[in-house]
């Protein structure tokens, strides 16, 4: 029973409902009685453990309840799982997304970069094709010329050509294919003199046309510095021409390489001057400043093969012009004095260039 008494004391001491004086006495006893102190310690530990054990138990129950509650929720609400998934992998997804975005735009960008030169190349290629097409066209024109004797010379695919004066009164010669189908024709020389002209005569067979200045303001070209050669020129003779293959006047030099023209045409020379569309109708002169021909065309696809109508045929045409007042006068007013012979080339050209015109055809 002593045990029980001690127990009761311990119990009331621990639960703090011991009267103050009794408590003081008990504490004194505790300090002296080691066995009692040990018992109190054990008792306290036991009670504490039991109490927190109970708390833990109830906490566990609570958590279990929450857990099963949560399981019920997630079973129904799957989006929560998605959200969890997203929360967990948002970073990875973000990295993946940015990497893929980067590679997509990087690829697009680099493709763009690669494409730029390709585009340029295509442009060049188109240019080249246009060039080829032009050549093809001239070649076709030549073939047409074989079939149709009225068009012996190929027609350069340009709406401009070259022409030169044959007397001081405003008469000029050019290739008839230059002014073919023209509504109006204008001529202009290096000095900037500009005249309106009309075609007054056409020789389809020799591809020659005579133009006349129709401007009322026109008075005279002045004295022509060159003469027309009646005889045939020799093979290998140095020849040159002036023409307008572009905006400015262009000088071209070569030699007479054959006494016959395209497909053995005896009315023309073959010359080795590099020519371009726009040179047609230009004057062909020899070293001494004699006019020996009129540039008419070239053979497409063959290097250095250009053709010029012999001056003899030009003269023949002039002489055979219909005997009307105006046209008959041309033969009489042809230049008789050569002012170029004995001069060097640049000086010849300086005198010559005022009589060589660009023929602009509008239709």
């Amino acid at each position, binding site marked *: 029973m002593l045990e029980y008494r001690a127990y009761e004391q311990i119990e009331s001491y621990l639960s703090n409902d011991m009267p103050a004086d009794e408590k003081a006495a008990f504490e004194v006893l505790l300090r002296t009685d080691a066995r009692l102190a040990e018992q109190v310690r054990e008792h306290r530990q036991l009670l504490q453990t039991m109490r927190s054990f109970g708390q833990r138990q109830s906490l566990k129950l609570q*958590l279990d309840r929450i857990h099963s509650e949560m399981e019920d929720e997630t079973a129904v609400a799957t989006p929560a799982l998605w959200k969890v998934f997203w929360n967990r992998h948002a970073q990875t997804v973000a990295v993946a997304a940015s990497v893929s975005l980067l590679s997509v735009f990087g690829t697009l960008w680099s493709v763009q970069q690669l494409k730029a030169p390709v585009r340029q190349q295509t442009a060049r290629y188109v240019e080249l094709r246009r060039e080829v097409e032009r050549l093809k066209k001239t070649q076709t024109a030549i073939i047409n010329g074989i079939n149709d004797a009225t068009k012996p010379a190929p027609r350069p695919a340009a709406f401009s050509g070259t022409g030169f004066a044959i007397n001081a009164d405003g008469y000029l010669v050019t290739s008839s294919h230059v002014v073919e189908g023209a509504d109006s024709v204008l001529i202009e020389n290096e000095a900037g003199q500009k005249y309106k002209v009309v075609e007054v005569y056409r020789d389809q067979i020799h591809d020659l046309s005579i133009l006349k200045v129709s401007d009322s303001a026109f008075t005279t070209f002045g004295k022509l510095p060159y003469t027309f050669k009646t005889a045939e020129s020799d093979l290998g003779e140095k020849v040159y021409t002036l023409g307008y293959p572009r905006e400015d006047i262009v000088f071209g030099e070569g030699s007479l390489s054959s006494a016959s023209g395209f497909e053995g045409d005896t009315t023309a020379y073959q010359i080795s001057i590099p020519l371009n569309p726009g040179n047609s109708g230009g004057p062909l002169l020899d070293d001494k400043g004699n006019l020996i021909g009129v540039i008419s065309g070239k053979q497409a696809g063959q290097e250095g093969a250009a053709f010029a109508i012999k001056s003899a045929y030009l003269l023949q045409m002039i002489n055979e012009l219909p005997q009307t007042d105006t046209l008959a006068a041309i033969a009489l007013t042809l230049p008789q004095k050569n002012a170029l012979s004995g001069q060097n080339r640049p000086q010849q050209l300086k005198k010559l260039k005022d009589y060589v015109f660009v023929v602009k055809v509008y239709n």
Partner: protein
Amino acid sequence: MKKSLYETDEAILEGIRRDDERALAYLYKLYFPMISHFILSNSGTDDEAKDIYQEGVIVFYEKIKGNTLELSCQIKTYLYSVCRRLWLKRLAEKGRYAVKMEDSESFLPVEEDTQHHEEQERQFGVMGESLEQLGEPCRSLLEDYYIRMQSMQVITEKYGYTNSDTAKNQKYKCLQRLKKLFFATYKPEV
């Protein structure tokens, strides 16, 4: 939604201190997926995940209650660290040493907290066993008095004792037995 109440860690802590069960429930549900993912990806099962997570939450909860928690990081990080530590221990007990943990979060060293928890677990294990061995009605009587804090009066009526002295006497006997059982197996670690 009630959720918005506990958007911040502070709100959750405050809620738990106020004994708000919703705060605990919110916290519990918020981080369970993270721990579950961690346990599952480190050769654990669903049940083990639940177990470990609950232990982690208990450590956290009791530290808040005991006002001994100095939270220098997010609750999330703390929970993760505790659960990670507990799981490592559990793996070691199972004789399986994970060569490498697949961590999805950063973690802190929380050995102290978990050690205290383990010690308690051991204590509670012994206590549970002792109570088990004690048998009825002793167990219920002690639980009613010491845990549920019922008065001697209520207990006397509930267990049909003739007077409170008999009840007290009975309680004393029960407690003595429990004491013997408990201290027979439990030796506090020095």
